[in-house]
């Protein structure tokens, strides 16, 4: 069997979950409306703070605004909840079917989870780009619009980095999935994961605006790989050799979380008791 044959079940699992989630159009539209509103408030608050700034800020206002719109568009990328399908499969006992398939259990769930995340992120991100990068400037609100990247190279790096962010996010959601499978309950884990993820990914505020003393730690923690590193590449703050180092950091987190998840899933599955009939 060549590698293409071997990858086929995972590609199919990804595509099936991706296409299934794309059906939820009204959920995407409702989420988009909420995020526009939310982004708008954040932009106005940032503009007010910048207008009265006594010290110079680490990033100009237009970058903070672009960051805000993109972070809102990438909201569904954040790993704050396990894939509900996994929790359901564990609770109903349907997980037994997955155990019978002659495929790698981790890779199968990983492919599905990636599809689940991608299908929720891409439509919202596209709508957000349409709204903040096209409609706002057309309406004459250029100051509050999503601006272009700092050149073609920065844009390409950012695109690559967002792809990696999707893979890293899926590897984190896999850890949540496994914890859900082990504990049979996802609500407790979700309640604690949400605040941590919102602050440390950069969704709450661009990480550069948090206190200067924290900056090194903030950049080196894994959640920065989801929003903040792609944004730093987009603005060209990480360029040349540093850009590659940013991507390398994302790859490092990806390898670490996939390895940890793979090991943890093996252990959980050996101890899992199938219930139901």
């Amino acid at each position, binding site marked *: 069997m060549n590698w293409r044959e071997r990858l086929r079940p995972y590609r199919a699992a990804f595509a099936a979950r991706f296409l299934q989630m794309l059906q939820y159009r009204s959920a995407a539209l409702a989420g988009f409306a909420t995020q526009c509103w939310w982004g708008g408030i954040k932009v*106005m608050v940032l503009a007010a*703070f910048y207008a009265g700034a006594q*010290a110079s800020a680490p990033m100009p206002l237009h970058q903070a605004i672009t960051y805000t719109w993109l972070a809102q568009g990438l909201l569904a990328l954040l790993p704050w909840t396990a894939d509900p399908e996994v929790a359901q499969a564990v609770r109903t006992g349907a997980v037994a079917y997955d155990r019978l398939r002659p495929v790698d259990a981790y890779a199968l769930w990983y492919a599905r989870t990636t599809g689940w995340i991608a299908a929720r992120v891409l439509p919202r991100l596209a709508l957000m780009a349409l709204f903040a990068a096209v409609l706002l400037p057309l309406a004459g609100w250029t100051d509050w619009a999503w601006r272009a990247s700092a050149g073609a190279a920065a844009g390409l790096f950012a695109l690559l980095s967002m792809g990696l962010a999707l893979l890293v996010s899926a590897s984190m959601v896999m850890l949540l999935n496994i914890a859900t499978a082990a504990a049979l309950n996802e609500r407790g884990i979700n*309640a604690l994961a949400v605040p941590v993820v919102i602050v440390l990914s950069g969704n709450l505020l661009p990480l550069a605006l948090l206190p200067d003393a924290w900056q090194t730690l903030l950049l080196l923690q894994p959640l920065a790989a989801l929003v903040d590193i792609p944004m730093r590449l987009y603005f060209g703050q990480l360029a040349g050799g540093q850009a590659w180092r940013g991507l390398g950091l994302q790859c490092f987190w990806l390898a670490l979380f996939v390895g940890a998840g793979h090991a943890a899933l093996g252990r959980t599955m050996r101890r899992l008791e199938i219930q139901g009939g």
Partner: protein
Amino acid sequence: MGTLPLFLRLAGASLQGQARYPASALMLTVGQFLATGIEVVAVWALFHRFGDLGGWRLGEVAVFYGLVNCMFAIADALGRGFDVLGTEFLRTGHFDRLLLRPRPLTLQLMGHDLRISRLGRLMQGLMVLGFGTVQAGVDWRPETVGLALFALAGGTALFLGILVLQGTLAFWTTESLEVANVLTYGGVEAAQYPLAIYAAWFRRLLTFAVPLACVAYYPVLAILGRGDPLGAPGWVGWASPLAGFAFLGLSFMAWKAGVRRYTSTGS
């Protein structure tokens, strides 16, 4: 049984039900406390970075923030029944059962599932309010305490009115609409900063369409003893929370129209 005792009994039953699972209730409360408290991090970090917000200091913004979060926490606990009306009552047909009981509908819904976990947001709001009191040196005299309670009641009525409208929409859509979050959670987000920092169209929206400014901005100005940078006279804050009750009244009128339109879907 009178209206108030009935409500208290419904609320008590709901709370006792949750108290059967103390660990779960505690965890959800702590989760709410943390999840709603992250906004504090944003406000604090921005003040740490920029010093002040167009003449407003951290302590003053903390008073706006704390009061708005308390309002929404109470309304959110009372309005849960309206929030889940589409999924839990209309689609399942349980709504028919409420209609058969010879007691006010809205009362039954308000007593339905009074969430203990909302205490998380309430405590968070009270703590920030306490911090703001110390930082901004708020002078709590009988009349300012009275005004704060009046504003709290008006704000709770306003947020409850938004939840009632959300429930009313469900009579047409038979599902609970996420879009209302724009006004509930989004309203909290907007009203936790002084209104004066926003663009003019947004200020008008928050004053005349969804009168958040009337229950938060103007009364807090009076409590802080600050003049309005936009030039509203000082007495406005003492009267404006009434707008919250008016909003709730209009919401109930829309609700009645929705109930009249209702046809059962369940079996």
